[in-house]
């Protein structure tokens, strides 16, 4: 894992964001809408490969459905800070129902509001 813009005070933030990223992935595979309700900002937007963009409510509705695979895991995670934002760049892989491995990439963007990191944007490409 790589991080840029590393200041000593960022250590806790990085740990927090690593945890958030792990739970984001876990919650996607297990359709854990409750976790997302707690960690998505009100103005969250999610961009998808089909050209759609959905708001928080639309994402919660999508995520409530079953994930099309198992063993979802993030790979090559990079966390960067830029002003008020934290960017998480990562690839991912998952096992499809036919047993083949699928892959993809995402960029999640968090901002800190009232001492909490909340996700304001996600962009996915799944293959």
């Amino acid at each position, binding site marked *: 894992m790589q991080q840029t813009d590393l200041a000593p005070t960022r250590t806790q933030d990085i740990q927090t964001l690593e945890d958030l990223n792990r739970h984001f992935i876990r919650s996607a595979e297990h359709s854990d809408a409750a976790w997302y309700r*707690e960690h998505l900002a009100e103005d969250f937007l999610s961009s998808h490969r089909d050209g759609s963009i959905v708001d928080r409510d639309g994402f919660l509705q999508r995520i409530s459905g079953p994930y099309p695979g198992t063993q979802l895991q993030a790979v090559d995670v990079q966390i960067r800070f830029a002003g008020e934002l934290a960017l998480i760049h990562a690839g991912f892989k998952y096992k499809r129902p036919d047993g083949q491995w699928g892959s993809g990439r995402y960029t999640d*963007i968090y901002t800190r509001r009232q001492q909490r990191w909340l996700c304001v944007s996600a962009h996915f490409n799944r293959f």
Partner: protein
Amino acid sequence: MMKQEKPQTHAAKPGDETQLTRLNQEFITAVKTSDVAWFESKLAPDFLNSNADGSLSDRAGFLKRVASPIQVGDFAVHDVLIRMFGTTAIIHGRTSFTHPDGQTGRGRYTDVWARHANRWLCIAADVSRG
């Protein structure tokens, strides 16, 4: 359920949104015309691009990619949304295009810009093409 905080989209400097609107349009034009010089002047040194094929490019890798002619035709951008977060901004956009076989395609991008010394530089882009 935890109570959600109100969005705190901080006020931008006057003219920021106008600048970013222009930069976004220039970004699209530069993609269409393989204008590497424009990207060299507008991408931050630590720029990262999440490509439509699922790979990740750094600044040098992206410049190499963008130097090649764009593989789709009629490339156009719609529904651009600019969100300000202090000295950073997120731009969301929808794209439409024509594949070489004539089929229409659609996609999305999410760009992140940061202001350094009164200059906006692009620090990340994530591109999807369906």
